[in-house]
């Protein structure tokens, strides 16, 4: 159990007849950033709420740090920090008062508050309600860290933020993770998905439709790999050979789409020996997570995503 910080087994949540989360299972390793990617209404928030004890689990089981979410709620609560999708500190209290209150609630040392204010560069004496949404999110993240949790849950950490604030939050997530924090985040934002998680689960209508490392997911959709390169000199013989790959030319670079990179590179370097050119630039590029997402999720017949009609 030790290596796995979060384990979910057949987790389901029903609201009346409606199934918001439908038997999902996954494991998150210690020190990992795990991303739940899915459109609005997929069940991401519901999953986070079940894992953080905020809502009951209809069926299935989950463990955090080895503690059962159903049975050991108190230990689970002590192990986790939650940054909800809405920044929800007390508007009338200052940043410092908010953090101090949180520290008292968790029985955490007050030094943590001072440290976080310094480290996150927070305006200690300003009222929370008066802050910009970017700063609110920062303070909400700080508040989730006051008691030094083992796992941080972040529900849509960059939503409703301007580009600069979103970038700052992403940097924060990475920095926290580098210090060993396990992070479970949800997002419908492709930039987050591309940049943050070590592993991604794609969720749709309450189910996980694919899971894996970014590269694995990208290869899973089997759209091939883009190889971009420049050579000197470019001979007509070379161009003739490359014709079978239907290459594209752009700013002195040649791009081809191949199924197997290794095969293509072997071929290219053979040509280099026989034709005697120099390779001055070479890069490969997988399809984007967005491509993967579009490939793996079905377009709902109705834009609302889940209405009964």
């Amino acid at each position, binding site marked *: 159990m030790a290596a796995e910080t979060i384990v979910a087994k057949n987790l389901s949540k029903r609201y009346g007849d409606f199934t918001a989360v439908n038997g999902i299972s996954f494991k998150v390793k210690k020190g990992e950033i795990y991303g739940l990617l899915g459109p609005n209404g997929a069940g991401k928030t519901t999953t986070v709420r079940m894992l953080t004890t*905020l809502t009951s689990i209809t069926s299935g089981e989950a463990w955090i740090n080895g503690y059962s979410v159903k049975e050991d709620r108190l230990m689970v*609560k002590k192990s986790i920090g939650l940054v909800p999708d809405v920044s*929800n500190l007390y508007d009338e209290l200052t940043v410092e008062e908010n953090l101090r*209150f949180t520290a*008292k*609630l*968790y029985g955490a040392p007050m030094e943590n508050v001072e440290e976080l204010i310094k480290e996150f560069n927070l305006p200690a004496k300003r009222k929370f309600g008066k802050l910009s949404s970017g700063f609110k999110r920062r303070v909400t993240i700080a508040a989730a860290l006051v008691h030094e949790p083992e796992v941080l849950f972040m529900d849509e950490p960059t939503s409703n933020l301007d580009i600069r604030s979103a970038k700052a939050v992403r940097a924060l997530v990475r920095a926290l993770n580098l210090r060993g924090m396990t992070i479970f985040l949800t997002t419908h934002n492709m930039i987050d998905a591309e940049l943050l998680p070590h592993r991604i689960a794609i969720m749709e209508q309450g189910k996980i439709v694919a899971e894996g490392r970014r590269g694995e997911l990208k290869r899973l959709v089997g759209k091939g790999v883009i190889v971009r390169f420049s050579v000197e000199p470019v001979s007509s013989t070379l161009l003739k050979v490359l014709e079978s790959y239907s290459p594209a030319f752009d700013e002195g670079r040649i791009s081809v789409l191949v199924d197997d990179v290794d095969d293509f590179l072997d071929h290219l370097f053979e040509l280099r020996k026989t034709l005697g050119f120099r390779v001055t630039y070479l890069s490969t590029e997988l399809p984007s997570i967005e491509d993967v997402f579009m490939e793996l999720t079905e377009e709902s017949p109705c834009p609302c995503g889940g209405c009964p009609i």
Partner: protein
Amino acid sequence: MKILTIAAKELREYVLKPGSISWGIVFPLVFTLAFAVRFGDIDHLAPGLLSISILFGTSSFVSSSIIFERRLRTFERLLVAPVSYLEIATAKILVGTLFGIFVGVTSMLVLRLFMAYAIWNWILLLLFMTLSGLAFSALSLYVSLRVQNPINAMTWLNLIRLPMIFTSGAIVSLLLFPRWFLAVGLLTPMTYSVDGLRFSMLEYYDVVNPAYSGLVMIILTMIFLYLSIRSIKNLY
């Protein structure tokens, strides 16, 4: 310990938010003054008016606190922290009670100006104000947590507290109604507050022995505390 932490936070937060508090004070004061000016000597009305003040003070305070916290989702901060539902509910009730005592004492100072007799027993009066505050806060907490949509809490609260003014004998003594109405009076939580306050102020009671009144209010507090905790569980 955590109960006090939460209670202190609530006080600080709501004292800083003037709007929610003033309604809880202004209404009882205006209400009291209106009766005083209309009837002159209000000795026999005073206990009822005091009880109404405490009821409106506590219920406005507790329900607006819960409505705000549920809508802004700050309530979830408490739920996700290592704090029990019992601690959360108790903290809310304590702060409501404190506010109720504050409103009660303020109203009492105003009522005093229009009363012919002296208060019989101030200490007992403070005790019954506290018990009323506890019972009314717990009741309001339950109502505010029972409704699915927090916006409806005020409507439900009014459906409960307005009729209570009449069925509790706060304004017209229960002894002046037909006998069957006494049963309705005894089913009204506020009856015990009114009669307890009456005994502390005037050294007599209408229907319920003050010892029973005190006991009933403690039991009511515990029942509504229990129901509030169950409502939190059902909501989330």
